[in-house]
């Protein structure tokens, strides 16, 4: 009797999950697995596939454009993450001080960019960075700093910082929101205690709140990191990887390799390497942020 019940439960569970996992299988797992297999093969889309073991991987490590794209990807993601999390955390702490209604409105607005499509954000910022009519240059001219005007996206020295700035603008709201929510969960009595002991607001923040919300900070770091690695839309719209590959990132290089040059297997090799690097960086971040968690 009991066994039968268990069995019907198993069947039910599988039945409930089947449609969802069929789609996951189709959208993630099969292409992902095929990607790994392809990365060990030599294939241009027409001829026979043949296994070449690690040849593609060796090639990737000697491909200066790939190395450059991966370092660009990592730089963009890590710097965006650091900037967005630090600024988001600071903002959360400042908004924590404001009255409820007022703070809620600000939080909502600051969070807004996170839900605008990245491609659209890219377009918004082409208006800002445009070299003759762009807002940034107009503003600089307006305040008399004509010397600082720049062809922001056409200059290989400024292109990466520009992309990173957009990333921070876009993602800032996430760590802000997450940190704010967990700040609110801290019982005010703890701060009260600090205040009675004569701690200033800054001291209360650093010594009381910061350690308490550390897990949330770690989480928002991972959150932002995973988002900041998705550079395709943004970089594609802003620069397409230019000028002269100065802002080339892996997703763009990969799609170009596959769909422009039909080097499908090499493209998938880059995909596997990128996945590994992302996972390593995420694990490292979690490792660095690991520490005592406090119950309250």
């Amino acid at each position: 009797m009991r066994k039968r019940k268990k069995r019907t439960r198993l069947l039910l569970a599988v039945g409930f999950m089947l449609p969802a996992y069929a789609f996951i299988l189709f959208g993630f797992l099969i292409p992902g697995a095929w990607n790994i297999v392809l990365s060990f093969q030599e294939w241009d889309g027409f001829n026979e596939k043949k296994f070449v073991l690690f040849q593609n991987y060796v090639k990737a490590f000697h491909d200066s454009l790939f190395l450059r794209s991966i370092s660009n990807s990592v730089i963009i993601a890590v710097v965006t993450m650091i900037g967005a999390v630090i600024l988001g955390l600071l903002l959360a702490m400042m908004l924590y001080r404001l009255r409820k209604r007022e703070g809620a409105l600000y939080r909502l607005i600051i969070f807004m960019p996170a839900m605008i499509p990245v491609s659209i954000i890219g377009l918004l910022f082409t208006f800002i960075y445009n070299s003759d009519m762009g807002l940034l240059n107009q503003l600089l001219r307006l305040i008399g700093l004509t010397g600082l005007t720049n062809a922001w996206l056409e200059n290989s020295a400024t292109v990466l910082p520009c992309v990173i700035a957009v990333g921070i603008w876009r993602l800032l709201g996430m760590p802000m929101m997450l940190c704010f929510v967990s700040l609110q969960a801290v019982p005010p009595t703890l701060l009260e205690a600090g205040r009675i002991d004569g701690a200033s607001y800054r001291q209360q923040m650093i010594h009381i709140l910061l350690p308490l919300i550390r897990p949330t900070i770690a989480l928002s770091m991972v959150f932002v990191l995973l988002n900041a690695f998705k550079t395709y839309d943004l970089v594609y719209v802003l620069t397409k990887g230019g000028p002269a590959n100065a802002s080339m990132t892996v997703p763009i290089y990969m799609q170009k390799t596959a769909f422009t040059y039909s080097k499908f297997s090499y493209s998938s090799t880059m995909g596997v390497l990128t996945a590994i690097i992302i996972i390593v960086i995420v694990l490292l971040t979690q490792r660095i942020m690991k520490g005592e968690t406090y119950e309250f």
Partner: protein
Amino acid sequence: MNFKKLNHTNLVCRGVALLSVLITLYPIVFVGLTSLKATSEFYNNIWGIPREFKWSNYYSAWVTSRIGRYFKASVIVVGISVVAVLIFSALAGYALSRLKVRYVSAAAIGIIVITQLMPLESVIMPLYLIMSRLRLLNGYVTLILPYIGWGMPLTILIYKNYFDTIPQELMEAARIDGCSELQCFCRIAVPVMKPATATNAIFNFVGLWGELLWASVSTATSQFGTLPVGIISFKQQFSTDWGPMSAAICIVILPLILIFSFLQKYFVQGLSNGALKG
């Protein structure tokens, strides 16, 4: 108590907050204003509000640059995908939370974790090859099938976490009254999970409404395309026409802002629930 100092801190906090709000809003407001300016006016009056509202920018974006057609395609693709994701992942999330079956549940959660760490970019190309082999590269299905799959993991997770917070007794009672598992799901779980559904609906809508990579790769050879694809091709053709260009951008953003402002309560709730507990 040091009253003066406290006020000072508050002032700084408010100042910084207002500055961030300004920086966040300005690009969006700018596009809104530009979308109503004639191109000639734009060059003389970049910063100000338009002297004369030029609604024809919207007309020309919608009709002449065929943003309307892309809009329709986007509504169909995103609409069907979001509904499908919600239905299937609600079922799966319910099963994961309520019908705990040892190995199956563990494996199912494991799969979700794996998909979260997989960069979507590395799935695009094999998927394209699969779809072209299945001859599915010609229309709505091309986009809808993968979109459903991609939305699934996070949505399942949020549903699961949500069901976990619903007291077991609620379901037990229904079960004792003779409800089958499916009846339990439809009669008890579905009405209770409204907040989670709102969150998931927004998450998926926002994610898919602007999806560019797969949409541009898979529709490269066809006439058909979604809004982001349409806008990018618009930009390549008329990049100096800032007025209609901004109008097109506004057409994309507007539905998002509307949805977000109506349902923002759930959005924030869901973000913190899904992310913090997940």
